[in-house]
């Protein structure tokens, strides 16, 4: 299968004497329709690798290819545009904008991309919220939603522009087991039923076990890549 996103010898270090290495020589391929997890102990560089893959951070070495195109050296505006069009992010602390309702939070990336007219944008936002079981919660601000509901709003927002890649940074880290399981099922469905590539940083070995590909990291380096039988 052709890789949607491919990192070759990716590196990220912070200036210093000696430089602080966050990620080193990371070579990996993310394929559509797969649920990939990145695991490892705290501080091993999981989130740093995720930010590099999601074009939020700039690599200090190596090559990053999206659909075969080198995107590692793109300027800020081009990277922002790609994040808007191709990527969806879900973070541990939901990261919704507090002044905006659930509906408005989902509308933000749709309106910023500007491909849909007002009516179509509204319909899409409502459908995404409904798909996450949030009917009737559209006009609630984040402070009036439970942790699980907030994370589902964040997933709806991540899907707003129909991205090819969903990136999660400990998306279940702040949820109870019930909501955590629901999020994992959602991610699996996004990969297996909708053909998206889902990459998730996690400490939870249960989630890792449920994924198609597990990338293990230690001290900024990828030490193992395991494929589940389904993927093979």
């Amino acid at each position: 299968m052709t890789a949607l996103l491919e990192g070759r010898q990716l590196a990220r270090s912070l200036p210093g004497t000696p430089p602080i290495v966050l990620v080193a020589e990371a070579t990996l391929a993310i394929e559509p329709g797969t649920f990939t997890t990145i695991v490892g102990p705290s501080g091993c560089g999981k989130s740093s690798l995720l930010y590099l893959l999601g074009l939020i951070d700039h690599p200090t070495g190596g090559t990053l290819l999206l659909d075969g195109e080198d995107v590692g050296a793109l300027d800020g505006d081009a990277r922002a545009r790609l994040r808007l069009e191709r990527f969806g992010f879900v973070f541990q602390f939901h990261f919704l904008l507090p002044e905006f309702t659930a509906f408005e939070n989902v509308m933000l990336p749709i309106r910023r991309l500007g491909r849909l007219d007002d009516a179509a944008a509204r319909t899409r936002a409502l459908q995404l919220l409904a798909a996450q079981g949030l009917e009737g919660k559209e006009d609630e601000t984040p402070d009036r939603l439970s942790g699980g509901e907030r994370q589902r709003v964040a997933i709806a927002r991540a899907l707003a522009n129909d991205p090819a890649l969903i990136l999660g940074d400990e998306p279940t880290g702040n949820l109870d087991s019930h909501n955590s399981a629901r999020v994992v099922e959602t991610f699996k469905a996004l990969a297996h039923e909708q053909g998206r590539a889902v990459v998730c940083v996690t400490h939870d070995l249960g989630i890792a076990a449920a994924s198609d590909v597990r990338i293990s990291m230690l001290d900024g380096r990828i030490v193992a890549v395991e494929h589940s039988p389904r993927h093979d």
Partner: protein
Amino acid sequence: MSGRLPLLLGIAIKHLSRRRRQTLVAVSGVAVGVGFFLAVSAMMIGSQNDFISRLIDAAPHIIISDELRSPPPQPGVRAFPGGAVALHGYKVRNEVRGLKDWPAILAAADALPGAIASPSLTGGVTLRLGGHEEAIGIVGIDPEIEKRISTIETNLRMGRLHDLETVQGGIIIGEELARRLGIGMGDVVSATAASGATRTLRIVGLFKRGQSQLASSSGYVLLREAQSMLGRPFIINRIGIRVADPYMAQTVATGLEARFGYKAESWQERSSDLLSLIVVRDVIMYSVVSAILLVASFGIYTVVSNSVSDKRRDIAIMRSIGFSQADLQLIFIAQGIILSVIGVLLGWLLGTGLMAILGSLDFPIAGEHQTIPLDHGARQYAIAAGASLLAGVVAAWLPARKAARVDPVEILRGAA
């Protein structure tokens, strides 16, 4: 399709709505700045316009006198311009003072569109009453023309300009001079010219006190009376001209002077020192008002700067979902603009209210009740709005630039 700018504007409004107290303080700062700018500038410009209109109207816009700015070239120089020999020490012929060929000058001035020219003769006489003497300058005029080119008719406390024609030997003097001489309306006074000719003049009008242009030591008589008294029949030495556009007076004066050679002095030239004072006044006014608006912009800076500090996490979220650095910068600049626009609108209301109050005040000046002259021109409203918007944008731009430079990785990693 939803536009990018309405979206960014909506986010800016949401941010401000969460900081109501600070927003109110910043908006009030701009409103007070704009309001006081309007009130102060209305007074300054109003009084300035009033002053200039008095300056323009008190005397003819242009006065052509029988003076020359430089001596006329001698016949030898005229005959051989650029000659190799220069003559010195020759005797200059004495010429009779007065405007030569003045009917031609008068006709040329009258021919200017909308212009009116009034001939007059000025000279010195001594008024005697009992043992009291006052040396004054008299101006011989044609009352019907003169009242059309100057405001002397409206500055009469008693009598009319026309009375100079109906009363034999009539003279109009100022109230102060009359008081010094101890005379009033209808009284007679003896006048002696430098030539020794003596006339008996009757007071037919009194100028109001405080009219500096109609000095306390001058009087108006009929032109032919002045010519007779001063022993200069058919001679005039001054032509006053009123032009359609007072601000073109300098150009017209230059043209007439170039054509006829006599000194043609515009009101601008006569009042150049006062006009330069007005420029200084303007500089002071705009400096003070700029300082007020600068202080108001500090309020905007504080609000936007605090907003950027508080919204670092939101900035990181928006960056991660695909908002560009320019988007973030625009959101915070929009906050500055919104604060300025609301401040300007409220400031306009405040300023209009202050002007209404100032306009209703009544001051006793020189024995008359006068109101403060105010300028209600749209220009000042536009200047206040423009300056406030500029101040708002500049004040918001600095923190907005900071917002655009927020590193989302740093925030996201810190929150994780």
